[in-house]
């Protein structure tokens, strides 16, 4: 294990991150708000920190990055990004303790969207933009961005890419990893720009449009308003944002194929069909459930049903209604949506549709072989057999996910939080959604969770974003053996 190499790469990433702080700094200067000084300090601190890390590892000359180092770089990189990203929140005094600032920052980078800020509209504009910007950076992945713009990461880039984007079946769009990363970021930026235009054209202020676009595409869910998207009360905004949330929940390589003129790309991909089908069916069921009991007209039920289902299943976490007052069935459906998540290769979190599909197909295969004990069958996706090791890792992932969900819920409950909240908060952070149930529902926030509980949830958010293996491997003693 070349620790110096890890430090060097993380140092460079930190320096790059510090440079992005210039954007909110300039916005702060433009609006003459109080965020200028805190950003100046945070920028200086991050530059110093990044340089120190880089200098600590500068003597290293390794070219080859093993899978182990890839995981260490990604895990450490995300942690360090969370810490330095928290500095502006801490320096500006919005968060009374550092753990609050760290929670907000990690919630941003992991595109969770869980907040500890009670009065969002009182926060300076520079800081709110930073909050949205870190979600945008975290959405497609800071390491993937690093691979795209820092040439020296090209060697061994594949190991980093696999550690940050651990899809069951990785697809490389271009022979070289750097080109792949570049394409993904371009597609991502293009769709974001499209949403800015769509929202702006509907009458949202440019500032709000940019912020919301930057938190929709990463399926983040930070809003600049206290009541989230509900504050606008506009059907047009609801629909535009729902549309872009669905786009963000689809594998980005399909977007690329679509932009290259393969119009049937979405339809040909079985996972995408599954995802869109799930959104459609769940919306209809939930809308029917709330029709009459909560909303008088079918139109209203559909509008709120659609937005809530899309927001949760893509793991975005915007709200236009308080679903905690909905009937139990709808609430349970939304809770299960938190586990389902979006497509693999999208910016969404959760377990991912592909894994659930593979799991179901595997179960069916087991049943089939009970009836035909001598049958030779394969689990197939798009007509191709899925290798056994992929299936094994998917089942292992699902087991780990549920196990960690159980463990963390028990731990959180042990810190004096009620049962609904414990389940809701862990499901919402592990799946990178944001709003959960109980004390952390769509109209409340995470401010009242005890300090130790926040540490636990920070860990859950990182686990969810890096899809468990990359982070949990750090707890395995074998990882450190020479």
């Amino acid at each position, binding site marked *: 294990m070349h620790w110096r190499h890890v430090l060097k790469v993380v140092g460079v990433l930190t320096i790059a991150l510090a440079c992005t702080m210039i954007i909110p700094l300039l916005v702060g200067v433009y609006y003459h708000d109080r965020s200028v000084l805190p950003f100046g300090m945070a920028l200086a601190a991050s530059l110093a920190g990044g340089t120190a890390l880089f200098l600590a590892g500068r003597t290293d000359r390794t070219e*080859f990055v093993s*899978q182990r180092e890839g995981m260490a770089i990604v895990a450490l990189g995300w942690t360090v990004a969370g810490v330095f990203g928290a500095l502006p929140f801490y320096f500006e005094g919005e968060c009374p303790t550092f753990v609050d600032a760290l929670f907000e920052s990690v919630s941003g980078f992991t595109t969770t969207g869980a907040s500890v800020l009670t009065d969002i509209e009182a926060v300076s504009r520079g800081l709110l933009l930073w909050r949205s910007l870190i979600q945008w950076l975290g959405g497609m992945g800071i390491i993937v961005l690093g691979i795209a713009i820092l040439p020296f990461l*090209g*060697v*061994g*880039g*594949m*190991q980093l890419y696999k550690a940050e984007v651990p899809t069951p079946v990785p697809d*490389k769009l*271009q*022979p*070289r*990893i*750097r*080109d792949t990363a570049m394409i993904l970021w371009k597609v991502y930026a293009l769709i974001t720009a499209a949403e800015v235009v769509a929202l702006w054209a509907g009458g949202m202020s440019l500032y709000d449009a940019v912020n919301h676009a930057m938190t929709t595409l990463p399926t983040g869910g930070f809003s600049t308003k206290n009541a989230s998207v509900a504050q606008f009360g506009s059907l047009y905004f609801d629909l535009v944002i729902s549309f872009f949330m669905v786009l963000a929940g689809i594998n980005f390589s399909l977007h690329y194929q679509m932009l290259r003129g393969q119009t049937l790309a979405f339809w040909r991909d079985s996972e995408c069909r599954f995802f869109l089908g799930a959104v459609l069916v769940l919306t209809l069921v939930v809308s029917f459930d709330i029709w009459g009991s909560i909303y008088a007209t079918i139109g209203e039920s559909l509008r709120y049903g659609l937005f809530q289902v899309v927001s949760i299943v893509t793991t975005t976490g915007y709200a236009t209604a308080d679903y905690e007052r909905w009937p139990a069935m709808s609430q349970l459906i939304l809770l299960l949506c938190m586990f389902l998540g979006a497509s693999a290769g999208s910016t969404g979190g959760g377990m991912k549709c592909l894994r659930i599909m593979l799991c179901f197909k595997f179960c069916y295969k087991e049943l089939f072989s009970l009836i035909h004990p001598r049958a030779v069958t394969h689990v197939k996706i798009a007509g191709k057999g899925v*290798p056994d090791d992929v299936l094994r890792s998917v089942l292992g992932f699902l087991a780990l996910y549920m196990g960690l969900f159980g463990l963390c819920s028990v731990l959180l409950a042990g810190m004096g939080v009620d049962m609904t909240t414990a389940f809701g908060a862990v499901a919402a952070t592990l799946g990178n959604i944001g709003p959960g149930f109980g004390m952390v529902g769509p109209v409340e926030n995470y401010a009242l969770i005890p300090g130790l509980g926040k540490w636990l949830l920070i860990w859950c958010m990182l686990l969810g974003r890096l899809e468990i293996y990359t982070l949990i491997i750090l707890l395995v003693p074998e990882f450190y053996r020479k």
Partner: protein
Amino acid sequence: MKVIIIGAGEVGFHIASHLSRENKNVIVVDRNPEALRRVSDNLDVQVLQGSGSSPVVLEEAGIGSAEIMLAVTNSDEANLVACLAADIISPSTKKLARLRNADYDDYHETFREKAPHIDTVINPDIEVVKTIYRMMKVPGAVDVGEFADGRIMFVGLYLDEHSPLNHVKLIDLPAKLKGVRPLIAAIMRDEELIIPRGRDRLMAGDLVYYITAREQLQETLAVFGKQEPPLKRVLIIGGGRIGYRLAAVLESQPIACKIIERNSEKCDRLAERLNKAVVLHGDGSDQGLLAEENVGGMDAVVTLTNDEETNIIASLLARRMGIRKCITRISKFSYFPLMSTIGIDQVVSPRLSAINSILQHVRRGKVLSAMSIKGEQAEILEAMAMATSAIVSKPLRNVGVPRGALVAAVIRKERIIIPSGDTVIEPDDRIIIVARREAIQQVEKILAVKLEFF
């Protein structure tokens, strides 16, 4: 530039590794998922599972936009079919096939001319035999290359403790040697490649690479303290394809040759096809047999069996019996760094030869030959200076030769010029460039024609 490689074996892997480090877009196709996993875990290239001769797979790999396709699977037939399928889909892609069966030897040119679907045929065995032969002829050399149709020799040798050039600064070389001027192109010291300047010193233990005219070869070797009487007796261990070829070449020279082969059927066939060589049935690592056949009296031993461990052991045995020149065939690249530590300096590898001959076809511009030197840290290119490329018609110091690259020699008609900063390269000169791996891309750029006419 997009390159599709069919076959993820040792040759495919190393070419992919070479090209991906030069920032080319490489796609590797193979049927075996295990071989592909090794590629995708270690290299920044795209992999595709499937048969390289299937048009569906080739289409999926994007053959239409590929500049070159290299068919280097283990099977000659698969390589031929892959080229055929590729040609049907994408005639403009340059296609290269590796064919190892000796039956094809005489038809390389015919294939190139008459078979429209294959642009180049390479057979690494031929190259290996040439390399072995050159190594035998040049005493002390661990690496020998030829450029400009053999008029220029490129020699790599270890500098001995008692060599007259030990501790000499390069700048003092001309004063020390009157007339003879070996041009030192590169030095390998502790696995590190140095492109030397005037103030660098030669040290004992260095692997020195130099360029010289063929006529001056013996004199330059004398300067380095390496001299040997001409070869008279050679022992070959291993009578496979390469062993047979080498024996056949030696037969045409006044060199007595013995060949040891373990398999009696192979021995029969060898005895049938060879006239002067003595074919011996036995194990090449059997000390008794070696002693019996008077190995100590041989001028050189070449170990060429398919089992590299046997080759290493046989060479070490021969060394102990007093043979100074042992040429060993090694295939596993991971063994290379070990070889000089255990005292085996002269190593040949059919795979390395395959890579070298493929590389020269992949290079842009008018590259006539290319060879990569120990550890693949650098390459030596021989290229034709094209009238419209950046390198011609101005003094070299204004050309912007990239860092880590050196224009080592210029050949103008019959003359060999050792260039200085003021040398102006003329169109149709041949130039020999030593370039580190990182610099190759830029070197290609200065060699390439500015407006690409084709």
